[in-house]
């Protein structure tokens, strides 16, 4: 996670997050032709002072190691 080192009260800041996760889609077949089970990050919640300001539901279409930038 990366945030600006300093921010004024009321200022809008950009937050960058990187999760290390393979986000296995559940659509791929392994070498034996067996479907690889889905294993993804489902939900990402960001809070400020305990108040949720962003809630993302991720689906298999999000690339592996999900990278999210928001303000």
């Amino acid at each position, binding site marked *: 996670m990366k945030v600006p080192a300093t921010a004024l009260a009321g200022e*809008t*800041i*950009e937050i960058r997050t990187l999760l290390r996760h*393979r*986000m*296995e*889609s559940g*659509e*791929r*077949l*392994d*070498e034996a*032709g067996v479907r*690889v089970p889905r294993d993804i990050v489902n939900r990402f919640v960001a809070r*400020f002072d305990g*108040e*949720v*300001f*962003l*809630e*993302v*539901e*991720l*689906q*298999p*279409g*999000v*690339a*592996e190691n*999900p*990278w*999210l*930038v*928001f*303000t």
Partner: protein
Amino acid sequence: MNSRRRRVLDAAASAAFAALPGAPAREGGGDALALELPEVAENGFSVPLAFSVSSPTSAADHVDAVLILAPENPHAVVATSRLTPASGTARAATRIRLARTQTATALARTSTGVAPHDARRARRGGRLRCLSPRCPGRYPSPRCPCTRYPGARARSRA
């Protein structure tokens, strides 16, 4: 986009919004959504995508939800975001998977019930193969286990 695909997309979008609590979305209004997607995605496993909605982001008028759709993917809904007035701006960026060349759509819903949207076409470029020994090398191929959906094991061939 042909009319059938448009209808399917509209149905998917309204169904997806129907699953979310809040006011039903309607078309039009002053808010504009800008979607950023590369014209050529060299690596379909990781395509940068960004959206921004021009919105005052106040308690009375803010972006409530944003849907990202890639209709040619096995799962058309890529991500659903819920935003609140506490968000600084209605802007975000991430990386998505694109199974093939297609037009991705971002669809927002504001607290006033307006639904701005934008679509961008991204061509799947580059040559990709997965690391499986059964992969014939050229993506996509019915013989390749990675063909059904881009996954973690594929790498771009330089």
